[in-house]
């Protein structure tokens, strides 16, 4: 029986399976797990892990990640947000009188990399009709040069696909143990929903890799996470 974090990691791994180079930010154990799973499956994937205490991949300092993304060398990035809305706008600054750390590199990375939005908490507090502050816009008018943008939104309840031609999310699947009606009630924005499937759980081979070499690889950078999921 897969744990919730294992399901999310497997799902993300399938979404980014064509990647050659992925950047994973700080405080991103689930995306990091997805990347290590792809590696363990034998895919030649370069993973640039930011804020690693060891194995810093850069020689040019903290600007290098952005230069790399600006050169088009990063296939996928991951973003969350205090608030996300139906236009795939991301808010990392303020909401309801509360101040959050800030936008980090989101206003640039969202433009230069295909982006998986990940938010474990799926609630009307997070998925709002309209964000209070746009740290990074979900889409741009046609004259704005933009190579990247949202591909999918993964939450603890569901998978949404971003539809760029419609500028709207489509509910693709609901995770085991959750329902489409529950998702509708927990989501503060409008989205399309045709035939909604159930998110495929991790396969036995995927679980074996996750609980073996992947757990070891993740344990060094995310010891708390590894302990919570795999011990």
């Amino acid at each position, binding site marked *: 029986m897969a744990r919730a974090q294992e399901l999310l990691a497997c799902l993300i791994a399938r979404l980014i399976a064509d990647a050659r180079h992925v950047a994973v930010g700080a405080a991103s154990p689930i995306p990091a797990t997805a990347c290590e799973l792809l590696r363990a499956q034998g895919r030649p994937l370069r993973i640039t892990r930011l804020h690693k205490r060891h194995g810093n991949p850069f020689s*040019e300092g*903290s*600007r290098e990640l952005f230069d790399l993304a*600006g050169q088009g060398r990063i296939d996928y990035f991951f973003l969350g947000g205090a608030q996300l809305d139906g236009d795939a706008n991301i808010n990392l600054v303020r909401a309801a009188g509360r101040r959050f750390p800030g936008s980090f590199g989101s206003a640039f990375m969202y433009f230069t990399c295909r982006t998986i939005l990940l938010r474990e908490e799926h609630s009307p507090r997070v998925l709002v009709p309209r964000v209070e502050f*746009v740290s990074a816009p979900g889409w741009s008018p046609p004259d704005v040069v933009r190579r990247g943008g949202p591909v999918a939104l993964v939450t603890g309840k569901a998978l949404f696909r971003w539809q760029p031609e419609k500028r709207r999310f489509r509910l693709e699947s609901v995770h085991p143990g959750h329902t489409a009606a529950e998702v509708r009630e927990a989501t503060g924005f409008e989205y399309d929903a045709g035939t909604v499937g159930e998110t495929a759980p991790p396969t036995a081979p995927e679980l074996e890799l996750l609980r073996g070499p992947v757990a070891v690889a993740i344990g060094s950078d995310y010891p708390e996470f590894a302990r919570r999921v795999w011990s």
Partner: protein
Amino acid sequence: MDAVRALIRRKITGLKLLGVPVLGLCADLLIGAGCVSEVHSSAVSLGEAGLAPRFTDAAERADITVVDYTCPAVHTALQATEKGVPYMPLRGVLGSDLVGAHADWQVAQNPFAGGADPILLVAAIAPDVALFHARWADEAGNVWVGRRRELATIAHAARHTYVTVEEFRAGDMLEDELLAPGVIGSTYVSGTARAERGAWPLGVAGVYGIDDTHLAMYAKAARTREGFEQYLREFVWQERKSSLPA
């Protein structure tokens, strides 16, 4: 960190901080101690230790002015000064609410494009002071920062650069081909001072690591004004015996 604690002891006020590209414990201490009027940064947080509590409180009460950036815009603004030009372009960012809050960012048309191609222009920033901690300074007045090349950019862009260092070395690091790529040349350095373990509770790559236990303790204590004041009494107002005087 030692330099920041010394600034607090001198009761400095009215500071305008620029995070390159983010701010952390140093900023939280200065803000909590009443030294800061304005914060310019793409984020302020304690990393794995969570939110920066004094920053969060001051921002929510509007005790400080906060100007929000996105990381590459900070680098770009400093790189413009480094190049001696009034502004540099940056892709992305258009359509973000960050743009409207910046009088020093403009949207222009790419003059080399065939058709419409709007692009962000970021005005150069020239800080008064660059302040950081590094591993080595030498007799020739150079400092070594290794791969932290954003520190070189700040030093090139700032009017004055002050560096505390773990250790002084004899000679001239620019004479060593292996050390030279990590050097900031003496041209850019206004002054240096020795501060052994001067980054604590943060770390210096290759010398000592981050003191996570201390950071977690600070994050918890500083959630309240009383807890923060107690932290200052214990760790800031008293100079540590292992530091040289500021």
